[in-house]
């Protein structure tokens, strides 16, 4: 086999492998019945572990194949691991929830699985075509996940919302792409960069095209003002799905964005730098401020997710490798704490005539359910970024990057925001620890939910104290 062919194979091997596994999952789905459906998910986990083990690239190794269309390197690998983790945690934690809601179906897992294949393509894409296909693979699966609970009006509603708005945003993205393509004469990142260097940047159409594209990205990472879908979708979607959506697609979007801007838009750094610094500020403030006034914890977490996107954008704007390494670390940690939080959230059942996720349901939980409360406390303070919890490490790295890039003002805004954010996370703990119970609430943590939240909590604590492992894990990744 020629080295080129070899290269091609290696560059795309993980995706291929995953696809094969995905198809196997579909078959498995058909073979299993009722309770057994969760097996599908567990197999998925196994497959991912296999893929992760097989396809780990050599440090610094870069496998660019198929006429520079797909790239498999540490960067793609790290993010693949993040997706895999998100998938694993969600799967492990979701069983009871799905069972109670009567939607314990194999599709849930297979669709997640396929969405991850899409994400992998997004991240490793070196060509807009590949990127677009990956994006849509992910997006469409996400629409389905959002509307997965057919019987629940909210779920269906969020599905439709997500779909319409998502489709619209990808329309914008595409339209932008076409202009970029027209102006630069290529879909390939490297060639786009080339063209931009050679003066295409001045071309008026490019600017529109780029802004439209970036807007499309901004939509995926739910950056203000393209964030509007996020709260509704997250709130309506089945809780585990929501947990997954706040983590994996966002990570994917960020990763692909980093790739795109670093490889393709390197010459017009000024443009996207400004673009995202504006959005970062808007996003952080809007997310936190509105989250402050939420009474539904699920929705509050949705807004918090928006604000976290804001922090991560700081890492993007920093335009140094610490920046995107911080983003990777952040999404990694975020996977644990946010999915953990959502899992615990999914456990909560309010017997009163109130939505399960309302703050009142948390009142006095610390007495009835100390373990639940403790777990939630850990996740909340971690999200708030209080040391010695993992969340702090994430924020810290972001600020380090910003300070290194001498974006003092942005760092200050970020810091102030994290102080501002504290309050709404604290409010959950206030209800749990300081208030007396108001409603008959059932918060018994089932086996699978326990596993996820336990892993989450332990990791959050452990990373808080000994972050070296995680940090060195992301230290190698280079675009």
């Amino acid at each position, binding site marked *: 086999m020629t080295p080129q062919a070899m290269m091609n194979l290696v560059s795309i091997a993980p995706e291929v492998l995953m696809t094969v596994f995905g198809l196997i999952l579909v078959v498995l789905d058909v073979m299993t019945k009722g309770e057994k459906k969760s097996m599908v998910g567990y197999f998925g986990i196994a497959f991912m572990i296999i893929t992760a083990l097989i396809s780990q690239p050599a440090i610094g190794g870069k496998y660019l194949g198929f006429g520079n269309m797909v790239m498999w390197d540490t960067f793609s690998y790290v993010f693949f691991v993040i997706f895999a983790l998100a998938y694993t945690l969600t799967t492990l934690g979701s069983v009871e929830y799905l069972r109670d809601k009567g939607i314990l179906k194999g599709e849930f897992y297979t669709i997640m699985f396929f969405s991850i294949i899409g994400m992998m393509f997004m991240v490793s894409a070196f060509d807009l075509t590949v990127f677009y296909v990956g994006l849509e693979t992910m997006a469409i699966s996400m629409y389905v996940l959002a509307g997965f609970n057919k019987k629940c009006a909210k779920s269906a509603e969020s599905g439709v919302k997500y779909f319409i708005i998502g489709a619209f945003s990808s329309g914008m993205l595409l339209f932008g792409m076409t202009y970029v*393509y027209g102006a630069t004469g290529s879909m390939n990142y490297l060639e786009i960069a080339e063209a931009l260097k050679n003066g295409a940047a001045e071309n008026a159409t490019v600017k529109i095209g780029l802004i439209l594209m970036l807007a499309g990205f901004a939509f995926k990472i739910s950056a203000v003002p393209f964030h509007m879908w996020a709260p509704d979708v997250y709130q309506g979607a089945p809780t585990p799905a929501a947990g997954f959506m706040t983590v994996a697609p966002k990570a994917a979007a960020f990763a692909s964005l980093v790739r795109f801007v670093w490889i393709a838009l390197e010459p017009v750094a000024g443009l996207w730098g400004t673009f995202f610094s504006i959005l970062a500020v808007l996003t952080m403030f809007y997310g936190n401020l509105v989250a402050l006034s939420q009474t539904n914890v699920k929705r509050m977490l949705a807004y918090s997710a928006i604000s976290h996107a804001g922090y991560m954008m700081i890492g993007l704007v920093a335009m140094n490798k610490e920046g995107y390494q911080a983003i990777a670390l952040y999404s990694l940690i975020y996977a644990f704490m946010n999915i953990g939080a959502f899992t615990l959230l999914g456990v909560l059942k309010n017997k009163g005539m109130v939505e399960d996720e309302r703050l009142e349901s948390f009142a006095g939980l610390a007495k009835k359910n100390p373990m639940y409360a403790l777990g939630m406390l850990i996740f909340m303070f971690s999200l708030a970024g209080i040391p010695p919890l993992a969340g702090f490490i994430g924020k810290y790295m972001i600020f380090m990057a910003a300070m290194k890039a001498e974006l003092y003002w942005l760092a200050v805004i970020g810091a102030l925001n994290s102080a501002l954010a504290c309050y709404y996370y604290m409010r959950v703990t206030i209800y749990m620890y300081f208030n007396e119970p108001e409603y008959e609430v059932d918060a018994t943590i089932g086996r699978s939910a326990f596993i996820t939240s336990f892993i989450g909590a332990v990791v959050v604590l452990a990373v808080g104290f000994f972050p070296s492992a995680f940090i060195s894990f992301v230290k190698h990744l280079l675009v």
Partner: protein
Amino acid sequence: MLTLAHYLVLSAIIFSIGIAGVLIRRNLIVMFMSLELMLNAVNINLAAFSNYLQQMTGQIFIVFVMAVAAAEAAVGLALIISLFRNKQTINADEINTMRG
């Protein structure tokens, strides 16, 4: 003689019509069709450009877009149906139970 500009203008117009449709119409199906309209505008652009640049990439891309559009249609319509099952309506204004 039709130049690139004509195509671009045309597609721009179609695209705008699409956006307008999404913004104005209240019927989800119609909105969805407007979305498809936007995608077609994209395709016109691609075709025009690939012709202008004399390369295949654009036209290949069109195929992808179409395929994706089809997939989208499938999922989208399914979702709209499940929504209709729940709420007996596909009026965009009535699906605002989650807000604030």
